[in-house]
C-alpha cells in the first residue's frame, strides 16, 4: 500500500456544459464530444449527466471535462463553455460560467441573453432547414468545435459518423458542417476585439 504517488501534478483542463430540455439529445451530444476528444484525439475525458425523472421535457444537461492529464473532476462548479438550448437552462446555468467563459445559445429558443459576449446561433432553425429537427444537437456541436477548437472538425465528424444510424449518416455529418459554418458566419461579422474574447482551447490537445 505504500506505493510512491504518481500523477501529483495539476493538469490544465476545460469544462463544457451542454444544457436544455430532455429530448433535445444533449446527453448524447455530450457523449459525442467526449468520444471525439477521447477516441479520435487521444485525450482524457470525464463525461457526466444530470437530468430529471422525465424522459422528455425536463431539465437536462451533460458535462464534459477534457484534459491531456489525469482527470479527477466529476463535477465542476465552474464551466468554461456553456451551450444552452433553452431559456430555462440559460437562466439556471449562466451563473456557473467562468469570467472568461463562452456562452453559446440557440437564438430561436433563448430570447433573453445575459451577456453581449454570447454567440447566438439558430441551431434548431438550421436543423429544421436541414429537414430533421433531431440534428440540432449535432449542429450545436459543430458550433462549439468551430469556436473553441477543442477537437478537430474531422474528429467530431468521425465520432458522429460512428454513432449515426446508416440511413442518417450523411445528414448528421452534414449537420456538423452546418453548425461549423454557421458559427463562423456569426462570429465573422464581429470586430476583432469582440472576437478575441472567444477562448481558444486548441492548446489543450497540444
Amino acid at each position: 500500500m505504500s506505493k510512491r504517488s504518481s500523477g501529483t501534478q495539476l493538469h490544465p483542463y476545460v469544462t463544457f456544459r451542454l444544457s436544455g430540455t430532455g429530448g433535445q439529445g444533449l446527453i448524447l451530444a455530450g457523449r459525442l464530444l467526449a468520444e471525439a476528444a477521447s477516441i479520435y484525439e487521444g485525450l482524457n475525458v470525464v463525461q457526466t449527466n444530470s437530468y430529471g425523472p422525465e424522459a422528455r421535457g425536463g431539465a437536462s444537461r451533460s458535462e464534459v471535462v477534457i484534459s491531456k492529464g489525469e482527470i479527477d473532476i466529476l463535477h465542476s462548479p465552474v464551466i468554461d463553455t456553456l451551450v444552452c438550448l433553452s431559456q430555462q437552462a440559460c437562466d439556471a446555468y449562466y451563473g456557473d460560467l467562468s469570467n472568461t467563459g463562452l456562452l453559446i445559445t440557440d437564438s430561436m429558443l433563448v430570447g433573453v441573453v445575459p451577456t453581449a459576449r454570447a454567440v447566438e446561433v439558430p441551431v434548431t432553425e438550421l436543423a429544421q432547414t436541414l429537414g430533421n429537427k433531431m440534428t440540432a444537437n449535432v449542429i450545436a456541436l459543430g458550433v462549439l468545435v468551430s469556436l473553441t477548437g477543442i477537437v478537430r472538425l474531422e474528429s467530431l465528424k468521425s465520432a458522429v459518423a460512428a454513432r449515426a444510424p446508416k440511413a442518417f449518416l450523411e445528414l448528421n455529418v452534414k449537420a456538423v458542417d452546418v453548425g461549423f459554418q454557421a458559427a463562423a458566419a456569426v462570429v465573422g461579422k464581429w470586430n476583432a476585439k469582440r472576437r478575441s474574447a472567444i477562448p481558444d482551447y486548441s492548446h489543450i490537445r497540444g
Partner: protein
Amino acid sequence: MADATNQTAEPVDRHSWLRGNKKFPHMWCPGCGLGTLLNTVIRVFVAKGYDKNETVVISGIGCTGRIPVYVDCNTLHTAHGRALTFATGVKLAKPNLKVIVFMGDGDAVAIGGNHFIHAARRNIDITAVVVNNSTYGMTGGQHSPTTPLGMKAPTAVTGNIDPPFDICNLAVAAGATFVARSTIFHYQQTFRLLSEALEHKGFSVLEVVSHCHTSFGRINKLGSHLDMLKQQRDHAVVFTPELDVEKARAEGKDLVIGLLKKDATRPEYCDQYEKLVIQPSQAKQNRGGV
C-alpha cells in the same frame, strides 16, 4: 399411468430416497398429513424412475418447508414465500434438472403470492405442490389467506373476516398450464395427479388440501386428525366438465378435486429462452438524430 396399488417398486427403493440416517423420526405432529404426502412423493419419484442427482426439491418456510430435509436428492430450503424464485433460478440455469417446489398456503399465496402468480405467468417448467391446511401451523394456527370465513384462529378470535383465496382459481387465472387439487385422504388421487404434474411441461400446480388438527382443528373443534380426514372425504367431489359446482356445494360437496386445467399448447419458458436470438436489426431503433 402407474397405479398406486400396483407399483413395481420395492420398499428398499423408496427408502433409498430418504435421508434415513439422520433425520427420522420426522418433526411433524403425529397424524399430520405431511407424512402421508412425503410418502406419496417418494412413491411417485420411484415409480417415475427419476434420477436422484437430477432432481431438486425446494421449499419455503413452515411445516411444509421441512419436506426437503428428508429427501435424498438436491434439496433447497429457502426463505419464507420465496421458494419459487430460487426454483426459477435453478431451473433456468440448468433446465435438465427436475424441479419440484413444496409450499404451504401462507407460503405460496400470502408472502409468496407475487412469486406464485409470476411463475405461473412465465409457465416455467416447475411443479408447485401447495399443501393447504388453512392455517399457519408452525407459528401456532393464525389465520391464513385460505382460512374460510368465520373460522377461528388466535389472530381471528371471533371468526375470520378475510375472504379466502381459491388457490387453484388463482393459478388458472395467472396462467399455470396444469392445475389440480387433491387431499391427503385421497392418496391415490394425489399419486396420480402428482405423477401427471411432474410429467407436464410447464408450470404445474397441485393443491393438496391437508389438515392441522393440532391448532386449526382444535381451535375450531373439528375433532381428531381422523375426523378431519373424514371431512376431506365427505366434502370432496371429483371434477368433471359436467359438474354443477353450485349444486354440489348445496349438497355439502364444496371441495372440488381432480384435474382442473391442462393446457399443453402454451410454450414453456426455458424452451422460449433457448429460442431467444437477438437480431442486430432489432437491437436499435432510431428516428434520425444521433
